[in-house]
């Protein structure tokens, strides 16, 4: 990808496999990307593409071996997170890297007040007494624009709307000023007006505090709103990666082309949406072929016999399609 001065996080050849009685199941293959401070990388893909597993691997939140194997490098500020022991990783989580999930209700404890949960997050990483922690919690609730924050501190999660709960989750995530926030479908469960408010909030955090953002979404519209760079995942692999405008306006992988065509974009209502026939393949089969070959209108023989490596097609723009640049075959 683009060569920024110094990436905050560099993921190199990340491989994840899950292991059960039936054997080993590769779920992420050779994922590589960088995020510079203050920038946003969007990972876009459909269910089962491996985008959430990628983020959980970065956070070391996957089940431990022998249930899963994680290989590769996750360099964060120069340190390889995959080499850290559990204690060091715990210190990093929340203070340097934090995470926001899709469903704020299941991430908040219903038995504790908003204030308790926010203050706990603060005091795990900072030595503050009750009063100071409460003052800080209040300040953070103001930052995420929660109305009447003094009152909210003493309320329980069920009293809040979905959008307010997600704001609380974001407040907890940024409480210790992390350098990187991973947001896994943070607006998917929310109404559109609330989604826009949350996207605004995330953008403001980036601008004001230089937080880097890893945004995971199935929604091209949401990614287009916030990301600087985008990585498209399919069947456990990043199949295209580049600056957002390039990927959206001149996509270089057929899967991206198909997905963009399947997204309603206004215009003629008589027109049909592009539909990608078939289903996501069994991830075991894609070790020896392009995972998209069976659904691709542009398939050639080598696509079905060899895994297709990522290669560079334009400045900072990489694709795993051997037929790129696609403009030539259109």
């Amino acid at each position, binding site marked *: 990808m683009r060569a920024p001065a110094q990436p905050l996080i560099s993921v190199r050849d990340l491989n994840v496999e899950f292991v059960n009685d039936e054997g080993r199941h590769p779920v992420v293959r050779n994922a590589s990307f960088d995020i510079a401070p203050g920038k946003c990388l969007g990972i876009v893909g*459909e*269910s089962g593409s491996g985008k959430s597993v990628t983020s959980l691997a970065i956070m070391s939140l996957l089940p431990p071996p022998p249930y899963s194997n994680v290989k590769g490098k996750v360099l964060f500020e120069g340190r390889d997170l995959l080499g850290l022991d559990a204690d060091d990783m715990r210190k990093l989580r929340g203070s340097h890297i934090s995470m926001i999930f899709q469903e704020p209700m299941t991430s908040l404890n219903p038995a504790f007040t908003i204030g308790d949960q926010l203050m706990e997050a603060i005091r795990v990483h900072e030595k503050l007494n009750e009063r100071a922690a409460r003052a800080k919690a209040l300040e953070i609730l103001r930052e995420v624009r929660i*109305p009447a924050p003094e009152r909210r501190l003493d309320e329980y999660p069920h009293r809040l*709307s*979905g*959008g*307010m709960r997600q704001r609380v989750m974001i407040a907890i995530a940024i409480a210790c000023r992390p350098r990187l926030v991973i947001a896994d479908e943070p607006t998917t469960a929310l*109404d*559109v*007006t*609330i*989604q*826009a*408010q949350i*996207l*605004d909030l995330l953008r403001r955090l980036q601008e004001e505090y230089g937080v880097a953002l890893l945004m995971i979404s*199935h*929604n*091209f*519209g*949401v990614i*287009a*709103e916030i*990301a600087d760079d985008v990585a498209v995942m399919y069947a456990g692999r990043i199949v295209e990666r580049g600056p*957002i*405008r390039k990927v*959206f*306006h*001149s*996509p270089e992988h*057929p899967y991206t*082309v*198909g*997905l*963009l*065509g*399947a*997204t*309603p*974009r*206004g*215009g003629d*209502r008589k027109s*049909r*949406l*592009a*539909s*990608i*026939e078939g*289903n996501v393949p069994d991830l075991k089969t894609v070790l020896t072929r392009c995972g998209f070959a069976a659904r691709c*209108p*542009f398939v050639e023989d080598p696509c079905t016999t060899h895994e297709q490596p990522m290669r560079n097609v334009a400045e900072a723009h990489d694709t795993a399609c051997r037929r790129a640049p*696609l*403009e030539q*075959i*259109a």
Partner: protein
Amino acid sequence: MSVISQSRQEAPPQVDTPATPLLAANGLVKHFRDRGMFKRGTSVVKALDGVSFEIGWGETLALVGESGCGKSTMGRVVTRLIDPTEGSVIYRGEDLTHLSGRKLLPYRRALQIIFQDPYASLNPRMTVADVLGELLYIHGIASGAAAKQKIAELLEMVGLPASYARRYPHEFSGGQRQRIGIARALSLGPRLIVCDEPVSALDVSVQAQIVNLLKDIQATLNLSYLFISHDLMVVRHMADRIAVMYLGRIVEIAPTEALFANPHHPYTRALLNVIPLPDPTRRMARKVVDGDVPSPIAPPPGCHFHTRCAFAVERCRVEVPRLSPVGEGRKVACHRWNEIAPYESSGALETVAVRPYVGRLQERFAERKANRSG
């Protein structure tokens, strides 16, 4: 057999004239009583607060709005799955509101519904053939070999092989289950299908397949759809007209392109402003509406939207605006719609363009499908 012959006689009466819409909702009101777990007494949720609209033959009317606006309740009242508190549902000139039991059966066939989560609406212990066969039998449409034939036809119509009839719901992907949900709705030969968020739970590529399928079926059978969705881009692709709901009331109803070109109601504008478009050059340079949707248990007086509206004046806080015709087949419920500043495009109005070669590449995906099925 008596069930079968009788239900056949009770075909819906034919009183169709061009002036008779296929379906009309007149002043529908639905209140739910909410007995709070720890509270004394009850509170009333006004899910529908006097909603009226008409749907023409072969027309798609979309209901859009955020959680709690009453759009799903509307779908259930129209199909008589729940009874309205007040108001009436008129199908081809016939008032269905107080029909029950056997008298309602022919209308149950005419008015069908597809749900968001097809897995939750399919019995896990019944094969597809069982599910569809039971319906065909109960409604006296077919049984035995005739039913088998009909089921094969239904599956073909929704793009599934006939052999899938022997399978159980868990053997299908989300998109396939939604196809079965559509086959189930089609099995009784409906005139109107209520589609309640039919693609919201699906991946983008599968969503496109289902949207295309619904449009194909509509063209073949001249069906009408009441299409309920929160996704304005999907709605824009599907609907002839759009009704925007907020807290139990329709605030604006208009032909699709007119609504996108010039939304009159401030809430419609707020919704259009926040559509995330798949185009990074058109990021929302928009005004995002503040605040949450108020609780439907205690909606604000006057215009429900006044608490979030930039144009609200004293009158909006006390007087309920009526949904009034404003020309061009449009209606709007706002005291100030023709006083407020003209709508400035947020970009949602224009089509998102792709480079020509990308469009050509996308057409190849459609050809591929044609080659396969041909």
